[in-house]
């Protein structure tokens, strides 16, 4: 039997039972050993109880999605077995505690391991169960225990009383795999190279990129799945001379960011749907008063409180159209974890250069998933600061100077001669509000001109896939990897497909998209929402009536789902 060095593992059980921590340790351990990883995790919105699961795809070549089905299911309890076992791929492996799960007959390879009993009786350490399982997986798939040991040492370094117990649990798990069972599955994580790779979550990459871009003020209000950004900024900013504020609500968060940006400091807030909706009025203020600001919306399934721990790409409409009145905005959605770093820098650059609100759309899968990535080469990622007035500009300074690009040099408090009042009221070039109608006629086009300047200056999307494609996929946000994987797969099977995945969604790179659309026979737009917000937006702006593929069960696409739709489109073609 040829060994397979890519594995899709799913751990499932009761929330708080160790599912998440098992997943985290195993993922990190694999990544530290040089494998590529890609995870998805979800748990109930409650703190305790409910069904949680952790999905890890791990292997030695590049990994861009959750993959299809499950190769290895670890069922922590009977419910977990029942919910997930039908996802097992042919030749898949079921790992379970025979004391709690009684599997039906199936062709799955079964490894019973009484981890509850082992933890309770052998180790006298009930909470060690998850580490036993981690060890078992490491033993089974040939992962070097060293990196896991390091992780455990680190995790419990401040609690020596349970460090030893956990090390013992790990050892016991490994031993069980190598001695107590007969391995009959083909999965084996072979040696791989470790050079220059990072393992990060989307929220990690966003925070890192923001710090690199020069963000020195952060204000936010806790909300899933954005809270980790607040937590990172609270830890990191003080030593950089910055401030992070847990504000009283999202309105105060965005308000104080706008105040900080007015003071000349790069500022950011992060939230999810409910908070994003609350920030609406201030988005318009940033647009009108031309104040640079980065607003991260880590989307979760809505509407309203919705499903706080589930995925949905449901806030595109609000990003593009939310808020009363006409005002310019930038909307950016990163494609994967590495892109989070790159695009958040881009978000700051664009917010600063075009002096307006930049909405950055992450989502529950991307913010919380762990991916391996090559270290970003920051020498290729420029940092742009807003244009400030020169001494010459400061004579008879006009804050809202009506330039050709629409961009007016922005003074900041402390600059002598630069004083002005930033206004949400319509204003003239000086910021005066006494001739609103004339001002409006001048200023509305001026503000929109910045968007046209941005469209000219911005990065353009690349085309992915075969050159003579007949089917073109257009996606946005966290679906990049899974779409590309699907394209590769159908291309390998003789269907000619290509994809384009713009990162800057507003302004839309309409020329490039239209050229792409015109080059194919069918356009397919997969997105994780019911109403097809992106497809609708493309229809409004371009000459296209795309086929839609919408998923709204709270989970990411699998490559197979997209492949099936491409095949359907191809066969109708």
């Amino acid at each position, binding site marked *: 039997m040829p060994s397979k060095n890519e594995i899709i593992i799913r751990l499932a059980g009761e929330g708080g039972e160790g599912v998440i921590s098992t997943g985290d340790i195993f993922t990190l351990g694999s990544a530290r050993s040089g494998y590529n990883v890609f995870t998805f995790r979800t748990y109930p919105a409650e703190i305790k109880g409910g069904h949680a699961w952790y999905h890890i795809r791990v292997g030695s070549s590049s990994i861009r999605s959750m993959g299809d089905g499950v190769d290895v299911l670890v069922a922590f309890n009977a419910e977990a077995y029942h919910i997930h076992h039908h996802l097992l791929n042919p030749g898949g492996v079921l790992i379970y505690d025979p004391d709690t799960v009684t599997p039906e007959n199936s062709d799955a390879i079964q490894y019973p391991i009484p981890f509850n009993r082992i933890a309770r009786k052998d180790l006298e350490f009930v909470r060690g169960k998850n580490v036993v399982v981690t060890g078992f997986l490491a033993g089974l798939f040939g992962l070097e225990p060293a990196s896991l040991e390091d992780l455990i040492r680190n995790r419990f370094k401040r609690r020596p009383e349970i460090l030893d117990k956990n090390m013992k649990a790990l050892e016991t798990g490994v031993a069980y795999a190598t001695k107590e069972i007969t391995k009959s599955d083909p999965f084996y994580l072979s040696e791989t190279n470790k050079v220059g790779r*990072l*393992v990060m979550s989307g929220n*990690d990459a966003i925070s890192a990129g923001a710090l690199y871009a020069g963000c020195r003020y952060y204000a936010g209000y806790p909300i899933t799945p954005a809270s980790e950004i607040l937590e990172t900024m609270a830890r990191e900013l003080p030593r950089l001379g910055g401030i992070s504020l847990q504000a009283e609500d999202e*309105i105060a968060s965005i308000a104080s960011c706008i105040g*900080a940006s*007015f003071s000349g400091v790069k500022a950011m807030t992060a939230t999810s749907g409910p908070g994003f909706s609350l920030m609406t009025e201030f988005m318009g203020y940033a647009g009108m008063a031309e104040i640079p600001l980065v607003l991260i919306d880590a989307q979760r399934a809505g509407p309203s409180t919705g499903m706080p721990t589930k995925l949905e790409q449901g806030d595109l409409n609000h990003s593009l159209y939310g808020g009363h009145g006409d005002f310019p905005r930038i909307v950016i959605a990163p494609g994967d974890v590495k892109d989070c770093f790159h695009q958040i820098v881009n978000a700051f650059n664009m917010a600063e250069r075009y002096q307006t609100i930049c909405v950055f759309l992450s989502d529950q899968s991307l913010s919380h998933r762990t991916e391996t990535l090559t270290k970003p080469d920051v020498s290729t990622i420029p940092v742009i600061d807003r244009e400030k007035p020169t001494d010459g500009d400061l004579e008879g300074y006009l804050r809202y100077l009506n330039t050709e690009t629409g961009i007016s040099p922005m003074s900041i408090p402390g600059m002598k001669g630069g004083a002005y009042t930033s206004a949400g*009221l319509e204003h003239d070039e000086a910021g005066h509000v006494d001739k609103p109608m004339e001002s409006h006629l001048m200023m509305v086009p001026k503000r929109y001109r910045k968007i046209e300047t941005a469209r000219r200056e911005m990065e353009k999307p690349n085309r992915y896939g075969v050159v003579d494609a007949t089917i073109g996929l257009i996606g946005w946000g966290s679906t990049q990897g899974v779409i590309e994987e699907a394209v590769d797969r159908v291309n390998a099977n003789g269907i000619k497909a290509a994809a384009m995945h713009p990162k800057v969604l507003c302004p839309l790179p309409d020329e490039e998209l239209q050229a792409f659309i015109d080059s194919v026979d069918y356009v397919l737009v997969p997105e994780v929402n019911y109403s097809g917000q992106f497809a609708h937006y493309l229809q409004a702006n371009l000459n296209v009536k795309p086929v839609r593929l919408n998923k709204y069960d709270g989970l990411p696409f699998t490559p197979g789902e997209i492949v099936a739709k491409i095949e359907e489109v191809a066969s109708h073609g």
Partner: protein
Amino acid sequence: MVETATKLVVKDYKSDVKPTWCPGCGDFGVLSASLKALAELQLKKEDVVVVSGIGCSGRMTYFLTPYGMHGLHGRAIPLATGVKFANPDLTVLVMAGDGDLFSIGAGHLPHAAARNVDITVICMDNQTYGLTKAQASPTSKIGHTSKSTPHGVISEPANPVLTALSSGATFVARGYSAKPPQLQDLIVRGIQHKGFAFVHVQSPCTEFHDTFDYYNERIEQLPDDWDPSDREAAIRLALTDDREYLGLFYQTERPVYETTAREWAPINDEFDVETYLAQFA
């Protein structure tokens, strides 16, 4: 002498924009006291930011020469918090209405006070919504009839001084727009105070709700021997409603948020991205 040559005067802080307030509006008194306070403190106008709300009161920023933010209704305090946090060297004033601060913005003041942000908040209280033409405000008294309360107000009026005191403000005072010298002094001391200063100003709306006579009868100075360090006593006085006391109710010292927040770590302004990313390797 160089010194006299650079001395800043009231005119330096006054912009060319003619105030659009109605004749007699109490806000003129607040404007003139503020101008004089700025001159008294000899603050450079580029180092001052005045953040205002939306209302007649909110127009203040346009009449002044320092940097200004004419914000959103109710949000002057969180805007000012960001301005100050980003650059603690600035002198930051909030000038806003009773509706601004105690109706739509009611959720923000307690937090800024609790944080002891070093800003000075001036509440221009006219007990009405001036700009939207005379609806009741949170400080309107019981029975007050207005466009929005044709049958009279039936809510207990907000008590700005009491609210500031119980939220943890470290400087709480009340002035009256018909007494600009005292008001000027309170603003000066509010600015000098290290921490969250709240100056409540009775600033009547002559157009829709002229309470000058009412206040002229009721105002009273705090006793000469008033001890501004006694919070309980200050609260007791704030609860009195037959008299309207003027002066500095309360002042205390407490760490300022933006100072403490920066003391957490030795500051190293440069972000070393390589070192930072290494933790994820």
